[in-house]
């Protein structure tokens, strides 16, 4: 605004209309007027550029969101397929029932589990946690499922008590050979429904499975390296008699981050204490401090028997 005189009333009106600057007696200050005009033009250019880039950003943002939605749909479809690969919830083989709760940190989980019938007398199960989470870990779980089924097709040629240990050895070799660079912690077991016995082997499972019976709860013992990390390792064969009424609890290590205690040891004790008071997977899950987004994949499984039919 240029003006020959300074009147506050006019100035106020101009201010409200979006005044950028003002100059009194413009003819006496030609150079300043020239600069003000230049600046006003600059401001106008900037405003236009700003609008343009805002429109461009908005369209980029829209596109990005669309792409994100496509990827999300893709992940959801993947998660759906992964769930299909799990055993049916509540599946029962000769009086032993398998229940589980399965929650990926994102859409796909690096956790995996299975429970299958081998023949009239035996069934086989495993509970695995592939390092990391998300799609890359989920691919390895699919590989696990495939390798398990292939190995189970040879069930008749192998000793039941050695089956878990041999399978882990084989899994270790196959994972290393693929060169994926992913390893997994895993627990594998064969249930003898006639003798009421559990044959098992494990690769760095933490927390270890908890056996709950009328006498109380206790962690199973044993050790073994994770699968897919070290070459040429053998997995020791372990065994444990099962009482007529028992419940085996499995949790992936994600559960440890949801327990309130300070040290790992205290968390394991807390888990044992809670499991003793729970009868179903949901009871344990409901008592955990689960946030909106899980820091890690989380899954839990129980095998209970031998009374279910």
């Amino acid at each position, binding site marked *: 605004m240029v003006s020959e005189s300074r009147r506050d009333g006019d100035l106020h009106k101009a201010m409200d209309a979006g005044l950028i600057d003002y100059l009194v007696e413009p003819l006496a200050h030609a150079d300043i007027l020239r600069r003000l005009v230049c600046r006003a033009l600059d401001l106008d250019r900037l405003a236009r550029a700003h609008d343009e880039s805002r429109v461009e950003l908005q369209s980029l943002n829209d596109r990005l969101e669309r792409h994100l939605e496509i990827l999300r749909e893709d992940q959801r479809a993947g998660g759906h397929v992964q769930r299909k690969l799990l055993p049916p919830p509540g599946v029962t083989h000769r009086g032993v029932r398998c229940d589980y709760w399965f929650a990926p940190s994102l859409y796909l989980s690096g956790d995996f589990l299975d429970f299958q019938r081998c023949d009239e007398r035996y069934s086989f199960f495993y509970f695995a946690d592939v*390092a990391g989470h998300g799609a890359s870990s989920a691919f390895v779980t699919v590989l696990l499922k495939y390798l398990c089924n292939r190995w189970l097709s040879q069930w008749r040629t192998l000793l039941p008590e050695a089956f878990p240990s041999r399978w882990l050895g084989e899994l270790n070799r196959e994972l290393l050979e693929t060169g994926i660079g992913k*390893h997994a912690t895993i627990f594998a077991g064969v249930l003898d429904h006639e003798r009421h016995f559990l044959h098992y082997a494990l690769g760095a499972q933490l927390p270890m499975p908890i056996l709950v019976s009328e006498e109380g709860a206790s962690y199973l013992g044993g050790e073994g390296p*994770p699968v897919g990390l*070290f070459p040429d390792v053998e997995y020791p064969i372990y065994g444990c008699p099962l009482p007529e009424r028992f419940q085996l609890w499995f949790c992936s290590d994600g559960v440890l981050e949801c327990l309130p205690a300070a040290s790992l*040891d205290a968390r394991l004790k807390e888990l044992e204490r809670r499991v003793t008071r729970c009868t179903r997977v949901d009871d344990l899950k409901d008592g955990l401090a689960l946030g909106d987004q899980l820091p890690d994949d989380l899954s839990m499984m129980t095998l209970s028997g031998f009374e279910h039919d």
Partner: protein
Amino acid sequence: MIEGRIKAAFDSGVFVLKLCGDVRLTLCATLDAEAQRLADLPGLRAVMVDLREATNVDSTALGFLAKVALAVRGRLEQPPTIVAEHPDVRRMLDVMGFARYFTLVEAPLTEPAELAELPHVEADEKAIQQRILEAHRILMHMSEHNRHEFQPLIELLESQHAKASSH
């Protein structure tokens, strides 16, 4: 929780890797590069991993430590050493069977010399752009639908890439 950090030093043939805080897989690109580089380091005589200031080491990070051990196996007189005090961390190492590939101790024989922060392996803007472009190209080739969806973005990225290259 303290953010995870990785520090490294190499002096007189001894490579020291120090992990601090809550080390999670987001950091592991750095560790992976280290495992490969370590194997080819001229004059390497010993490897030491210091976990005394680590509050948590996730499974992926442990996996990479194992890869370091495997990469230098047969090249060094002694297996790599891991220094760890925290009972939780020691428990993890035990469960993972690290005792077979590392010497596990609670305190180093001598304090490692001053450690320098390992630079984040960060790609420059151009490299990131290149990678995004590549990823979208791959997505585009996966299906006709994707091609349709991503074509405009690819064109935009390609034009920016060309602009950046001509500077």
